[in-house]
């Protein structure tokens, strides 16, 4: 049994006087213990709402969630707030893009950590405080004992993200969800945080869902990658397979369009034409069709299904057969 099973998850937002909008459309994936699974895709494709749905953090009014999310076989959707709270403290941890908005600005860092420890791990005051300092130390915050009494605004962006990771790890969760944990950080700080995350999960049975738009981050960190487009998963593959042999025209196009640090200069980038505003509805055909260089006539009338493909999954009528140009050029 997988640690986390997401089955046919759909998320629809209802706003007064507006058509309901489908943000996530029947997505399914598993996360095994110890595994790092990537969710990638561009802005608005539904990455964050997927993670919020798993955590039970979507607003109960206005957002309709369908399908099933099971954690060690137990259904999470439909749990009461109290039960969810319990789960979130004990089994599920989450790290967001913007640490400042997820830390309480008026409570010292140490207290924010020890509160979690007291509530969920039933530690005493003193123990919790010592453990909080130990956690800060573990995430690489210098002089942790002094940090305990400081407020979030007294920490730099990178240190705040470390503090947030410490809170997420406080209860030794079985699953950690990181939603763009480094997007707001500088590259040298991003490298610190990514190496910290991979250190924390590798060799343990803690699983990690890594949400990012950065294919570079995925390439270094994830075992398996789900590529999302317009609220659906369009390709799933092991990390090496995905980059060596991207099968979906969107994945392929992304890899050809991003400049690589190690590519020789003067090579032209091959952009993907248009933008997501050109998408058509999945109910009509393939959402990517208006931008797709491999489109066929049927792509406009016949929605492709997600099917098994070379050890992964693929949703496309006309998959790519050749290696991406960027990879060819760089070697």
């Amino acid at each position, binding site marked *: 049994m997988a640690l986390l099973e997401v089955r046919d998850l759909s998320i629809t937002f209802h706003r007064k006087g507006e058509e309901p909008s489908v943000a996530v459309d029947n997505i399914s994936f598993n996360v095994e213990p110890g595994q790092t699974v990537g969710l990638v895709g*561009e*802005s608005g494709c539904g990455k964050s709402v997927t993670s919020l749905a798993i955590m039970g953090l979507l607003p109960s009014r206005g957002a309709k969630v369908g399908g099933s999310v099971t954690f060690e076989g137990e259904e999470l959707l439909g749990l009461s707030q109290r039960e969810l709270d319990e789960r979130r403290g004990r089994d599920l941890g989450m790290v967001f893009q913007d640490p400042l908005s997820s830390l309480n600005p008026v409570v010292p860092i140490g207290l924010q950590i020890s509160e979690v420890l007291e509530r969920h791990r039933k530690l005493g005051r003193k123990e919790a405080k010592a453990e909080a300092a130990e956690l800060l130390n573990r995430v*690489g915050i*210098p*002089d942790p004992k002094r940090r305990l009494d400081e407020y979030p*605004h*007294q*920490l*730099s*962006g*990178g*240190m705040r993200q470390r503090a947030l990771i410490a809170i997420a790890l406080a209860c030794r969760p079985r699953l950690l969800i990181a939603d763009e944990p480094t997007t707001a950080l*500088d*590259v*040298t*700080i*991003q*490298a*610190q945080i*990514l*190496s910290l995350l991979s250190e924390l999960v590798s060799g343990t049975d803690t699983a990690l869902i890594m949400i990012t*738009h*950065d*294919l*570079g*981050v*995925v*390439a*270094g960190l994830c075992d398996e990658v789900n590529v999302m487009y317009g609220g659906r998963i369009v390709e799933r593959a092991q*990390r*090496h397979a995905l*980059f*060596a042999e991207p099968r979906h025209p*969107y994945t392929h*196009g*992304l*890899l050809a*369009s*991003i*400049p*690589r*640090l*190690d*590519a*020789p*200069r003067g090579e*032209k*980038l*091959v*952009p*993907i*034409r248009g*933008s*997501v*505003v050109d998408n058509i509805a999945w109910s009509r055909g393939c959402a990517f069709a208006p931008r797709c260089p491999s489109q066929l006539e049927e792509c406009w009338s016949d929605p492709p299904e997600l099917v098994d493909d070379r050890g992964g999954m693929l949703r496309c009528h006309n998959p790519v057969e050749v290696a991406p140009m*960027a*990879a060819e050029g*760089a070697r």
Partner: protein
Amino acid sequence: MSDDVLVTIDDLKVHFPIKRGIVLDRTVGYVYAVDGVSLTINRGETYGLVGESGCGKTTLGRALLRLVEPTDGRADFDGTDLSTLKGEELRTMRRRMQMVFQDPLSSLDPRQSVESLLVEGMRAHGLDKGKEQTHQRLKELLAAVGLPESALRRYPHEFSGGQRQRIGIARALAVEPDLIVADEPVSALDVSVQAQVVNLLEELQDELGLTYLVIAHDLAVVRHISDRIGVMYLGSMVEEADSDELYRQPLHPYTRALLSAIPVPDPVVEDSREQILLSGDLPSPADPPTGCRFHTRCPWRQETLCDTDRPQLREIGEGHRVACHYAEDILEGRLSPHEVEPELVQPDAVTS
């Protein structure tokens, strides 16, 4: 000075006073945003400026365009010291230097149609020469940035991010500049759209012979688009080289760390590369470290010089400048990196 040089920046400094107190408004310190930077940009070339948040990239660009008054040093544009220009002269010169911003939506007035956004600049600089001619020019501009003519009557919010950035570029081009300072031109855009804008900038340069100063924190984008690259750290230039050379042979410890920190979308590369992980945070530009500004995080820091003497940018190899006392020893492998204890940085030092 050679004819090929369009921009010369010499020991430029921009220090922002930190004010405290409501009544007296005392100056209690300075943010050393740009602290002695020198560089030249040749006509028709793309100069890339990289470095982490707060290192002074934007301020340098703004000081060049005289959108902020430099504290010291000078900036020459096409052989003229910009500080000697006033009023009308400065305005005329400014037409030749345009800026493209990171966030196209916030830099475009939402109440103005695309047509009025484009005509505004032309009018201000007397380039609006009659209805017929202006319309012709607008059509050319839109074609140049790949937007349909129908865009003229529409408003910025009706466009996607990439299209808005095209409008921003068209607006800069409308006044026929020589130099475009592009500050993070693609970082607000979706990955799948960035390449469109990068290619557009390159095509326009080929066609119009433009000179670019491209400011970005994304070194992969900068390396792709630039002929030469300057790396900044805390208000200083620490290294400058030809774009390929910088990647092949980074000399400054900070550049090495920066290059090694950038994830490459290729698992084969990712699995095998050696990272130089820097410990600690960027110090505050209001309280920069003594000596070499990088010494608090430098894995090659030495007992002598590093903490006390500020290294000057000096040439090692053709066109390759570096500001490190020990660049040669590091290059030849005579010095090896060591662990660095992270020093604490208080983010508020600047603001509170």
